[in-house]
């Protein structure tokens, strides 16, 4: 079957790629586009390691067809820092030891950023349930939640 030509925007950059009709967004990100920050932890939408946003909406990129990216806006972990300046969540994750092996980390950060964009002042329970679809085997989660809530407080303070 002929490959599809897709024009999209990834992390603010207009991007074009060719893909098979059956290829997942995750495959294209990690393969031809070389954006390996999004991880494959299951390929079935169970673990959240491949979390990206599509027009601002959180999705598991393993469950999105690459062709669906046509004329959409994609954000991945590679676009989270601004140049050398880490996003406040990235900085806080680093300082508060909210990461260990690093496989779930990009997905957790993408999900946490979207949470704070939609709800700048989440309760602990809200944060825990929002991030319940991002599995982590190393950290025991505690530090992730503390880091998200601390970042939220700091970002609120900074926005005042």
């Amino acid at each position, binding site marked *: 079957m002929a490959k599809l030509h897709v024009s999209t925007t990834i992390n603010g950059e207009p991007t074009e790629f060719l893909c*098979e009709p059956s290829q997942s967004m995750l495959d294209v990100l990690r393969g031809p586009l070389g954006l390996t920050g999004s991880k494959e932890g299951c390929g079935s939408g*169970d*673990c959240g*390691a491949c979390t990206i946003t599509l027009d601002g909406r959180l999705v598991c990129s393993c469950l999105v067809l690459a062709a669906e990216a046509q004329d959409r806006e994609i954000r991945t972990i590679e676009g989270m820092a601004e140049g050398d300046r880490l996003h406040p969540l990235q900085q806080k994750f680093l300082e508060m030891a909210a990461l260990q092996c*690093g496989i*779930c*980390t990009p997905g957790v950060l993408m999900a946490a950023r979207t949470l704070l964009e939609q709800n700048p002042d989440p309760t602990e329970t809200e944060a825990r349930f929002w*991030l319940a679809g991002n599995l*982590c085997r190393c950290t025991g989660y505690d530090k992730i939640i503390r880091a998200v809530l601390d970042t939220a407080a700091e970002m609120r303070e900074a926005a005042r």
Partner: protein
Amino acid sequence: MLKEPHVGAPRSRVDGRAKVTGEAKYAAEFPAPGLAHGHVVSGAIARGRITGIDTTAACAVPGVLEVFTHENRPRTAWFDYKHRDEVAPPGSPFRPLYDETILYSGQPVALVVAEDSGTARHAASLVRVEYEAGAHETDLLRAREDAYVPPKRRSGISPPPKPRGDAVAALAEAPLRVEAEYRIATEHHNPMEMHATTVVWEGGGKLTVHDKIQGVLNSQGYICNVFGLSKEDVRVVSPFVGGAFGSGLRPQYQLFLAVMAALALKRSVRVVLTRDQMFTFSHRPETINQVALGAAADGMLRAIRHDAIGATSRFEDHQEVVVNWSGLLYHCDNVELGYKLAQLDIHTPADMRAPGAPLGVFALESAMDELADKAGIDPLELRLKNYAETDENEGKPYTSKELRAAYRLGAERFGWSRRSAAPRSMREGRELVGWGLASGVWEAQMQQTSARAVLTADGRLEVATATADIGTGTYTILAQIAADAFGLPMESVTVRIGDSSLPKSPIEGGSWTAASAGSAVQAACHAVRETLFRHARGAEGSPLGNADLDHVAFVDGRIVLAADPDRGIGLIEAMRAGGAERIEHEQTASPDKANQKRYSSYTHSAIFAEVRVDEELGVLRVTCIVTAVAAGKILNPKTARSQVIGGVVWGMGMALEEETLADHRLGRFMNHNLAEYHVPVNADVHDIDVIFVEEQDSRTSPIGVKGLGEIGIVGTAAAIANAIHHATGKRIRDLPITLDKLLERPPAERAR
């Protein structure tokens, strides 16, 4: 004024930036020109043989390069010992695509290699395999009848100690007795990163291999032995490992398949397993424990018997230390411990976070709780009463043991004294509240490890050893140790690990990496210091004069007199004075054999758990865990706390969620995905508090470290199960404790 050292301070992960930005590269992410992709075809039966494989349709798919099966695979080494890796248990190691024999369900039966991964995956679905099935057995409850004492012990795994006293007679005479059977389900490691290997064909027969492995030298040795390659031609490089928890101790079959394909096709090949294939190799063996405790009316232990049966494969005797803990956690004169294996048609189990310990300790610590109930004694008091001052298995003193302090500090933080003794006596609204505790224990070890340190005239320091960082924090603690040796900022230190060309290190496991690699790095740095110091003293007009190394300090990139820190010489100046552009030393750190002979070394913990159980629905939450850990010196409270909390949540998983369920008619694990194999998620976790108990230990390792990777999980499941009993009055002896078991009336009684 000497600055605060890095060691002991809560430093952030030096590899953190690479991980929060997605830049860190893992085994499946290294690019290679002309990379081909392999997809594994998994076998469908549990036992029997392949009678035919039809690869015609798969081979006909455009882009498919080759389909490898047992019929056309390249030749590999003949002898078993060539297939044995560094940590293989006794037996005959599994050989992928070896012949038509099927040894377990999910066994790889073919590898499809194509120009891209999608094509390989599609073509793999077209491979037709015909089987002749034989009778299989995957049910441990049936196979237990044929359990046997493993004839050959696994290296590094102590068999049960010889009996002491007469446990049978003492048990018969004991006024208080607890006898019960405790079972722990099969679990799978499920690190978030799937097992993967990228083999880069460098030309001229040379390979660079990026493998998901906890010890690059183990992969290198295995490949060289199996394929008859020279170590000069195979370099294994794995700077980052996305979790492993033991699944990456032994080289797994994707490594074999990727190297095989690369050698045959003479090009670069990557093989990534799928999540369901992550259930087709290593796992924690299902284990049955029978425990009998006898005690005097005041709770003093008179007899301990503990017999365990663990599952293993038909081809290897995987062994763990399951029962020995029962001989050393408490003082008791009459102890008899036994450990057997039962063979099933499964892949060989593997070490999984604290192999053995959480299984046996769950049984012992549950039984102790039952004994406390029977004796009418507070469970904490019972443990203090029976406290073991020495290792009675070996008859040796401990290098250090601050478990008593751990009990006290944990109980204070948790508020244990406010516990009301009777089950079902604490509640809040619809929820029953239960408080339980348990002890944890893990052997503290150090392994011989080599490291290199290189100081260059630009003031940078590089330290290197072939160990791994599987998310534990190895990079960070090694940077701390190295920086302290020279009074340098951590930013001046580069740590290189995960590369088989670096100085020799054992696999990363057993909680020994900090003690071992840390001691080796320190030794190498100290050797560099000596050379540097000679240069410094020899410098013209050196302020160090005749001072010896013991009387100087390395501060802020300078060597200064400890008594007069204003007098000193810069590191770079000292190197220039000696005409040295670089100072390089390699050192090997080994455990102290004399100490090992005289002392036993263990880490300990006291775990306190609170659960809340909805009385009508049985919905259960672990609302608080306090764990007090005595593990010698803590190099970095930040990474240390991470390790322990991670372990605690593994204990929660073991207690409540993790279970790989087999359909014994098919002989296959059925819930082979992360939707149905439940691990704790963010929403399951509430307050977890870690206390590090002050513990001085100069005998386990030169740097005072005892290790932390495993201790967090050991005992946690027991503390939770005991809390559940306290909340509900139900004693559940089968892990995990799922809703159905909680709601069952009357509660399943396994007590004899």
